[in-house]
């Protein structure tokens, strides 16, 4: 077990190196730099160069990269060019926000969509099934930001039930925090339930065709016992992979929702940093996102054998 985890982490190192190099090169490739942006049309002759020198941007890219990697290895991710904040605490701060929303959303979406998909599959072509299939296909077809805007319009603006912008950490005021995350979480839940329900349904149909399900019935088990005790684990295994994928990709694509609802999350941090050419923040958060992606995959791989003992971790 320990060995497995260690080798998996070790095998992720080249991936992380590749990502960091790509980010570094790409950021330096894109026209515009932080010094220019900071001074804008107010720049006096020579000031941009002076600032670039101060930021160390006049050195060769390879040297810049090596310095950065050296610092990262000692745990120093540098300081944001824009705000001067330390990058790592900044990232962790923002990640706490994004992950709260993403995990909450994925949890709720799974809790709703997995049973819905399985119940639908259990009685294929029943009214229940049609309802689930139609709903999930429909949800699958709505752009998340559009849905977010519409929800915001209805519940925030017209009905005035929920706050629209901002975020309160759960650690500060639980009730307030809950109010603020409702809309973004609901948006994500609606958008992500579609694929999860469909996956749960498809894999349950696959499993329901198998002989051991019939065999469980032949033992005299009730339908619900057959479903939960025999079908669930087997059907949930592929769904888990999808949920892991959703989790991993959401952490990098949540920026759209964060934009709509003005949530100070990791996605916004990254995008704003890209626009502001805040190199240390971009590099740090990209590395972090890649790391999280690897970690989520590892987690899925570790849980998988519990569901399907044929697969050893």
């Amino acid at each position, binding site marked *: 077990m320990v060995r497995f985890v260690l080798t998996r982490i070790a095998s992720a190192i080249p*991936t992380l190196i590749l990502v960091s190099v790509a980010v570094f090169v790409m950021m330096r490739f894109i026209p515009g730099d932080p010094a220019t942006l900071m001074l804008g049309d107010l720049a006096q002759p020579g000031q941009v160069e002076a600032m670039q020198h101060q930021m160390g941007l006049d050195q060769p890219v390879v040297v810049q990269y090596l310095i950065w990697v050296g610092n990262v290895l000692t745990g120093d991710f540098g300081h944001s060019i824009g705000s001067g904040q330390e990058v790592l605490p900044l990232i962790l701060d923002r990640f706490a926000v994004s992950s709260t929303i993403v995990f909450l959303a994925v949890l709720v979406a799974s809790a709703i969509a997995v049973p819905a998909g399985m119940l639908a599959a259990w009685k294929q072509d029943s009214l229940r099934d049609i309802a689930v*299939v139609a709903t999930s296909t429909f949800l699958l077809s709505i752009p998340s930001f559009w849905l977010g805007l519409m929800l915001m319009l209805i519940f925030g603006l017209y009905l005035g039930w929920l706050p629209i912008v901002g975020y309160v950490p759960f650690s500060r005021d639980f009730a307030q925090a809950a109010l603020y995350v409702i809309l973004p979480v609901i948006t994500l839940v609606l958008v992500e339930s579609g694929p999860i329900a469909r996956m749960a349904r498809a894999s349950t149909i696959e499993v329901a065709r198998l002989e051991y399900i019939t065999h469980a019935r032949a033992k005299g088990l009730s339908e619900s016992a057959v479903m939960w005790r025999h079908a669930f684990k087997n059907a949930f295994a592929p769904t888990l992979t999808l949920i892991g994928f959703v989790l991993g990709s959401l952490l990098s694509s949540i920026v759209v929702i964060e934009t709509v609802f003005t949530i100070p999350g990791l996605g916004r941090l990254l995008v704003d940093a890209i626009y502001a050419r805040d190199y240390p923040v971009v590099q740090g958060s*990209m590395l972090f996102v890649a790391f999280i992606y690897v970690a989520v995959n590892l987690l899925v791989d570790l849980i998988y054998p519990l569901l399907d003992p044929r697969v050893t971790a």
Partner: protein
Amino acid sequence: MIARALGRPGLKFNAIFGIIVTGTLILLAVFGPWIAPYDPLKLDLPSRLSGPSPLHLLGADEFGRDVLSRLASGARTSAWIAFATVVFALITGTVFGVLAGFLRGWVDRVIMMVNDAFLAFPGLLLALGLMAVIGASREGIILALGLAYMPIVVRVVRASVMSIREREYVEASRVMGNSEIITMARHVLPNCVAPIIVLATTMFGWIILSESALSFLGLGVPPPAPSWGNMLSTARPYIGQAPHLIILPGLCISITLLGINMLGDAVRDWLDPKM
């Protein structure tokens, strides 16, 4: 599926709906410019933000440009981008997926390492970077989205190649004396086609979504050329004043996706030997 409840016979409901929607999309993409009443870029400042009227059937946008014409022209943009991206991602993804899955060993390891790096790399930054390097253009988006979706294709193809290469008919081909390349081309690839086609239809929908999300963040199709996504994003400030500007492109995206998803379902059922 739904049709089964609605009482067959004939084609299933989802297939019919999917074909109609996709057909309309293709027609719009091909004949859009002839159908549209105006040039989608023509300004008409007096009509700015006006709702549906005889002059502008579906209203006009913040520059008084005809929304109907822009939607039609946007269909072409969206469809072309989605199509080109799917083709790009499929071809590159299949090549790498087959190589990795069939040859295994270090080829597999290297491809999968790069692939994982791609997967872990937010597509957004990729899009921004490429756009900055290539210049804001459709080609940039196609490349960016293509590179973002390629790793998924690589994974799916590799997985099915790996399961197929263990089948006995592949071994039979080897015993017959066929070289690895012939075995791959004649026995492995054709049997991966089903999952790839299913993935392609699903991806088509994802890409339309991603393009609109990119445009929403200001990284998509460079204006003034309309795409549904950038129409949505530029219309955002007018959500209260001219709701049709935001509802119409949103509806176009949703209906198209619904059609494509249903078509995808139909294709899946059709390719599934057990149904």
